[in-house]
């Protein structure tokens, strides 16, 4: 057989059939559901009197618009009536279709992309879909994980399959060692800056190289999470010992003989040595400083020592125009030092950076310090109830509270501000989330994407700082 990439292997293992129009039918092993993109799909099934093809291949939890304070109130804490209607609809649908759900008061509730891996529901070699574009997160486990629209959610519910044409292969190879204070988040922002937001359209990215091999699973999830921000359909990291160690013993993972059989297979989930990629990008880890986004697209980022660019310096007229728009929206003059950008709010959370390692990195920076006076609000929102419990057990939560942060319950929160956590107009926010689009974190709000450590440093200093100097 010809040499295959990791993506090719997962694809082949799930190919149900090829259609004569060039599309294929791909079998889906797991569908993650949340309250925002599932109601219309369940409605579609009901209207057409169709059952779920495989009830056990679905797992649900509410995350997008659950409030992050007063969680003990459960459903009663949701004051927005429309949000309440969505969360209630998820409850009702899960009950009537028999889908397993971690409901709002379950300690395992959280952001779907944190919960899946945490429970071992995400396994290597799987195909996974969710009606959320950051499903690419699960690619850290060598699972082909893709965000889909609501019609596709319904399609997978009804048929366990996705109709798709095969993507191309993109190799993003990073070698060398990241400097202390530089994290997977900085790495992925640097990658997106080079690829552009449409650079990997129609591709699946495989992250490779010694830097990637050295990353923890949590860091790999951060990396794969933002693949979509480079236009890719999915991101992947090959299986290695780090992957297996993480998965072993998790509630939904196989055990005993099944584990042995599974891990033998999972070890084959790497690209063949002579596999051919359609495109390649190479980076040196040493060259990457902490990153800060200055614009309204995740490709508009700069190193912490740089200045806000002059739109005229770009060669591509499209970039010139969009940088001009962005600076106007962000109210930043060209030439301003990134370190001179002052913040109003801090948001540490989201499926990109709300795992325990992220919170540890924050604690290391803020321990014994206080928020700067200009910071109006600083939220830390753990990715799941279990992350929350662990952070509390490790004493991290107390460090945050002592420093002046608001310590919340799990959910998407101000990553997309569908719940009450929002930026005010014109406020600048250092955010560990994944999108700095106009209005993403609140009407007319201004988002700067950074790593958790960088957000922590900005919270203490009131403006961006180079956290490499704070360690």
């Amino acid at each position, binding site marked *: 057989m010809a040499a295959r990439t990791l993506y090719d292997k997962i694809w082949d*293992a*799930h190919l*149900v*059939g090829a259609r004569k*129009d*060039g599309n294929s*039918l791909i*079998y889906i092993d797991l569908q993650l559901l949340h309250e*925002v*993109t599932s109601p*219309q799909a369940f*409605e579609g099934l009901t209207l*057409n009197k*169709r059952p779920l093809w*495989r009830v*056990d*291949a679905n797992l649900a939890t509410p995350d997008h*618009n659950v409030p992050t304070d007063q969680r003990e109130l459960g459903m009663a804490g949701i004051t927005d009536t*429309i949000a309440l*209607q969505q969360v209630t609809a998820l409850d009702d649908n899960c009950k009537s279709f028999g889908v*397993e759900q971690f409901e709002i008061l379950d300690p395992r509730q959280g952001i779907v992309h944190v919960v899946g891996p945490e429970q071992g529901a995400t396994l290597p070699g799987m195909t996974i879909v969710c009606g*959320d*574009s950051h499903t690419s997160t699960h690619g850290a486990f060598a699972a082909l994980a893709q965000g*889909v*629209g*609501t*019609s*596709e959610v*319904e*399609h997978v519910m*009804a*048929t*366990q*399959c996705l*109709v798709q*044409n095969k993507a191309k292969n993109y190799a993003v190879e990073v070698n060398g060692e990241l400097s202390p204070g530089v994290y997977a988040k900085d790495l992925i922002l640097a990658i997106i800056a080079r690829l552009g*937001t*449409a650079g990997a*359209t*129609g591709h699946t990215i495989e992250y490779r190289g010694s830097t990637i091999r050295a990353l923890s699973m949590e860091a790999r999830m951060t990396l794969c999470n933002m693949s979509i921000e480079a*236009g890719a*359909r999915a991101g992947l990291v090959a299986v290695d010992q780090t992957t297996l160690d993480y998965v072993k013993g998790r509630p*939904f*993972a*196989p055990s005993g003989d*099944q*584990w042995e*059989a*599974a891990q033998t*297979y999972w070890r084959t989930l790497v690209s063949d040595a002579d596999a051919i990629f359609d495109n390649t990008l190479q980076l040196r880890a040493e060259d990457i400083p902490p990153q800060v986004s200055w614009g309204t697209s995740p490709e508009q980022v700069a190193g912490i020592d740089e200045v806000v660019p002059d739109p005229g310096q770009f060669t591509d007229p*499209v970039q010139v125009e*969009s940088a001009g728009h962005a600076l106007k929206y962000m109210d930043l003059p060209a030439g301003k030092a990134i370190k001179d950008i002052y913040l109003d709010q801090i948001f540490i959370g989201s499926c990109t950076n709300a795992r325990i390692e992220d919170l540890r990195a924050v604690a290391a920076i803020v321990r014994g310090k206080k928020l700067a006076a200009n910071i109006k609000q600083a939220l830390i929102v753990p990715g799941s109830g279990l992350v929350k419990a662990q952070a509390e057990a490790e004493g991290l939560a107390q460090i945050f509270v002592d420093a002046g942060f608001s310590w919340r319950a799990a959910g998407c929160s101000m990553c*997309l*501000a*569908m719940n009450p956590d929002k930026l005010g107009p014109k406020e600048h926010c250092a955010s560990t989330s994944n*999108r700095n*689009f*106009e*209005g993403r974190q609140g*009407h007319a709000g201004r988002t700067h994407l950074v790593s958790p450590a960088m957000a922590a440093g900005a919270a203490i200093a009131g403006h961006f700082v180079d956290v490499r100097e704070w360690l």
Partner: protein
Amino acid sequence: MQAFTKHTGTVAPLERVNVDTDQIIPKQFLKSIKRTGFGDYLFDGWRFVDEGDLGMTPNERQLNHDFVLNQPAYQGASILLARDNFGCGSSREHAVWALQEFGFCVVLAPSFADIFYGNCFKNGLLPVVLNEREIDQLFHDCGQGYSLTVDLERQQVETSAGAIFNFQIDQGLKEKMLKGLDDISMTLAERALIESFEAKHRQSQPWLFLREE
């Protein structure tokens, strides 16, 4: 799904690259559990000066008169002329529903983001890729009452002056649009194939079926 064969309509030009789905339909409107009701909030942050929320009607809102879709010249447009990477960002299908409900039947752009492109075909909104030069020309020519005919069967966009631009499209997607076929029924017609794959899959990777009763 409604079939799409041929459409003639007026064109509205949206001179922006990387228009993301958060702009097309901002997140505060995603709380609805319905498929309808999104047209009023299309490009909400651009069409209106005030901040909108679900349930508000356009009459009670403050219009941004500078925004192209609010200009008298482009009222009733059913073809949206757009720039590169249209529909990037979040996977929300609501973006497509909002465009359709507002009255758009076709979006013309030099490129589309993947998920958005796919979502269009699930709902009967036709995304047409023309090359940069052709799109530039359309932007140049576009003005009050400028209309185009989009013929899916012949894969052509025709101007009222008779100029013709050909476009490429996946033949499977084209078929589906022309006939207005429902994806799920098409796939369920292959039930036997799926079942036999599933049986093999269960045997080779039994750990993927651990939660089965």
